[in-house]
């Protein structure tokens, strides 16, 4: 999805007009992009599905260890992160409505809030990780006395690590495909697909955290 802005200039399309795509009209292109994004979101959910399944099995085998280890996690940080992501998900949804109304300023404002929330989320995450690293519960600085939690923590780092990576990608998508073109008010009621796809991806990131938070922090 190289930036459509470039394509627009090349085909000297009006500021709010959809880009010229040689083998589809704009309505089909919109439908195709939406379907393509939803399929991509399905593959992302399946990536995490494997880890949820592994989590279920490891929990089945090491129930006590999972309980104790989950108490070591910082519940307040997790809950705060959940709220942060929910709010960012809300602002991303509002940004789409703004885009549909052709309000490029609104897109910048609300996507901006979402990206800011993403940053807060990552900061809280790094605070949590460094906290654990001091206790030696971090993959690289593994030390023996927390070694019996290795199953839980192994999965914890795989899940939250991959989720954090997706947060970063989501923020990048919102900036590159949302905020930057909007500053050149590229979007209008007739064309806002990248904004909607960026929001969809961000909602997925929030969706996954909605499942991660209770499984890791509350139930363990």
């Amino acid at each position, binding site marked *: 999805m190289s930036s459509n802005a470039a394509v627009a200039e090349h085909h000297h399309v009006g500021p709010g007009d959809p880009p010229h795509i040689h083998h589809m009209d704009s309505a089909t292109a919109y439908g195709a992009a939406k379907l393509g994004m939803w399929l991509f979101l399905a593959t992302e959910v399946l990536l995490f599905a494997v880890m949820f399944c592994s989590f279920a099995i490891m929990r089945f085998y090491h129930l006590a260890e999972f309980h104790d280890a989950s108490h070591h996690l910082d519940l307040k940080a997790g809950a705060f992160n959940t709220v942060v992501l929910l709010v960012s998900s*809300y602002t991303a949804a509002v940004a789409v409505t703004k885009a549909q109304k052709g309000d490029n300023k609104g897109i910048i404002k609300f996507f901006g809030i979402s990206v800011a929330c993403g940053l807060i989320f990552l900061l809280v995450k790094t605070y949590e990780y460094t906290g654990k690293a001091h206790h030696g519960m971090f993959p690289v600085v593994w030390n023996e006395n927390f070694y019996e939690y290795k199953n839980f923590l192994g999965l914890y780092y795989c899940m939250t690590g991959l989720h954090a990576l997706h947060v970063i990608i989501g923020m990048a998508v919102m900036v590159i495909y949302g905020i930057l073109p909007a500053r050149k008010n590229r979007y209008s009621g007739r064309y806002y697909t990248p904004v909607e796809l960026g929001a969809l991806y961000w909602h997925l990131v929030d969706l996954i955290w909605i499942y991660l938070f209770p499984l890791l922090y509350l139930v363990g």
Partner: protein
Amino acid sequence: MAHSHSHSHDELGHVVPESLFLKVLLALLFLTVVTVLVAQVDMGKWNIVGALLIATVKASLVIYFFMHGKYENRIIWMYILIPFILLAIMIGGVFTDDPFRSKPTPVGVSQQS
């Protein structure tokens, strides 16, 4: 004209009022508080079921409203449900195995030769 469903008015997707999003956000925040409180009560096995139920409700709220799931056609809904069905099949298939595994015990002699 390609056969896909283009709408009569010029907007492509369905415009959702921002007020609805606010209501959904409040519901989600409320459910978060609920799930944290419910988790404090130790109900043994039911804890995880409760947590997953609330999480599923929150997830469906996000899909249904935030991601415009309400206005999507059957095809997209099929691909929304497929991952969850596959997750169920995966966990179901693996759980027909692990809990029912036979655990034979070796002969009484000290095993570590």
